[in-house]
């Protein structure tokens, strides 16, 4: 964490700079692998040690970028690939944020309950961990199946809601873990002080534990946003939802042989989407700066 320590440069400038440098390093590494490793990969005694690096399997970064500007399909009037990706990303981003919100509420709620009652922590903690070992793909059809049976007056369960719910299933975990650690972070002296002041549990939660949890919560919220995007993409694929980036990754993969840059563009878009979601949530942290003094420690 020492790299993130506040210095002469404002924190966000430094972090943005570091992010761009990391991106640049990845591009350089990618091109370096293409340059050094032979097109056919490295095969020793029939065992492939390094993958093939031909333009077919690993297109140049610039050919992926160039592909973005050309039409998505050969059909007349087709939008550019970039346009298609942006539309699909926006679709997935909205679902991810909905899933993130549900996940954050669930994670926070769980953390509060676990902090308040020791027995709840003992009872729930194993399930929280276990929940993350169940493959998302196994859950997806179940969620869609259950959702399809929900009709409450004018409200009908939509397919995107299943996707958001599955995304929330991934997002709640880092939030629950981070929030619990944060809620438990006040020192003994601070807790004793509130007790000596005869502050109720709810008062102590809002005036002491919640503010103290912020330094733990902000990174957890950011991580939750990134996992919500991953969850949404996987859920789109496994529920067969149209319109999102997950669907595009699958359909573009089929044109990998003839148009290798296209699936890579979709993958890159999904990665950027995760960064955007985490960045948007990071803005929340700016509003809470006053509570983040302790984050240095």
């Amino acid at each position, binding site marked *: 964490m020492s790299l993130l320590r506040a210095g002469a440069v404002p924190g966000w400038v430094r972090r943005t700079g570091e992010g761009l440098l990391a991106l640049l390093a990845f591009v350089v590494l990618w091109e370096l692998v293409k340059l050094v490793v032979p097109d056919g990969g490295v095969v020793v005694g029939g065992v492939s040690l390094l993958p093939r690096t031909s333009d077919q399997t690993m297109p140049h970064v610039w050919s992926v970028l160039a592909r973005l500007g050309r039409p998505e399909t050969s059909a007349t009037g087709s939008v550019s690939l970039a346009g298609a990706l942006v539309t699909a990303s926006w679709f997935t981003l909205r679902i991810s944020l909905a899933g993130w919100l549900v996940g954050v509420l669930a994670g926070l709620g769980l953390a509060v309950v676990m902090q308040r009652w020791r027995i709840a922590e003992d009872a729930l903690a194993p399930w929280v961990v276990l929940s993350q070992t169940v493959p998302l793909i196994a859950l997806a059809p179940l969620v869609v199946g259950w959702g399809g049976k929900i009709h409450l007056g004018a409200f009908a369960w939509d397919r995107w809601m299943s996707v958001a719910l599955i995304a929330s299933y991934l997002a709640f975990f880092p939030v629950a873990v981070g929030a619990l650690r944060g809620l438990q972070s006040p020192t003994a*002296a*601070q807790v*004793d002080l509130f007790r*000596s*002041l*005869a502050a109720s549990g709810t008062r102590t939660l809002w*005036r002491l534990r919640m503010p103290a949890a912020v330094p733990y919560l902000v990174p957890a919220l950011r991580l939750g946003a990134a996992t919500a995007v991953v969850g949404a993409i996987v859920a789109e694929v496994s529920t067969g939802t149209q319109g999102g980036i997950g669907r595009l990754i699958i359909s573009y993969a089929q044109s990998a042989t003839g148009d290798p840059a296209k699936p890579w563009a979709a993958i890159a878009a999904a990665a950027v989407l995760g960064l955007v979601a985490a960045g948007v949530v990071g803005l929340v942290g700016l509003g809470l700066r006053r509570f983040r003094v*302790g984050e240095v420690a």
Partner: protein
Amino acid sequence: MNAQAGVAVQAVGVGKVFTTRSGAVTALEDIDLTVAAGEFVSLIGPSGCGKSTLLRLVADLDSPSSGELTVFGTSARASREGQQYGIAFQQAGLLPWRTVRANIELPLELHGVGKRQRRARAEELLALVGLTDFAASFPHQLSGGMQQRVAIARSLAEQPSLLLMDEPFGALDEMTRERMQTELVRICAESGAAVLFVTHSIPEAVFLSDRVVVMSPRPGRISAVLDIGLPDGQARGESTREDAAFFANVTAVREALHGGSVADLRGVDVR
């Protein structure tokens, strides 16, 4: 001394047993102690003698296993809920997201005191501890001694008639410590509050107290109670530390701590 002036803390046969994984540990046994209203009493003893435990019992942060403990005539719990004491710990325990002023206002805020009154009281207390210029600072911008002063101001916010202090100067350097002690004597003389003060420094206990309670460990007991005959509040200053009476008291407390004859030391008169 107790009948006419009122009693702040009264402990009769108080004991505390902690149940740990390796069995029961007796932290305190058969404690009899009376602190009069307005009296400054220090608890001193080696670590593990239960002096902090005793303070925590009075504060109702733990409850006694046996015996009877009353604070201003009611149970420790009732006096905590009635906000009859202010407390300060070895760690200042300030809330880092609050300014110095907001930290001092915290007890008032939790008890629904109006904004204007809170502000006025905070100004008084800031002046009292000499931190008026730092009202808008955050705790991490202050030195350890200044943070401790904020904690003391906070403990005084509701004008308690009893102050409980658990080694509040333990983490400070010697020079800051002496200055804080002088300030505390002055503050207590002004506010007229009774003080129960836990320390492991002999000169500190002697300089601050009307009486010093010497405790011995395993199980924690009171082994001696010494009356300190130093001049009262306002008259006690830096020169007191160089008095013969001061040194005589320091020696008396030291001998009591190191297991000198208890009977001879009880009620030492140094004048």
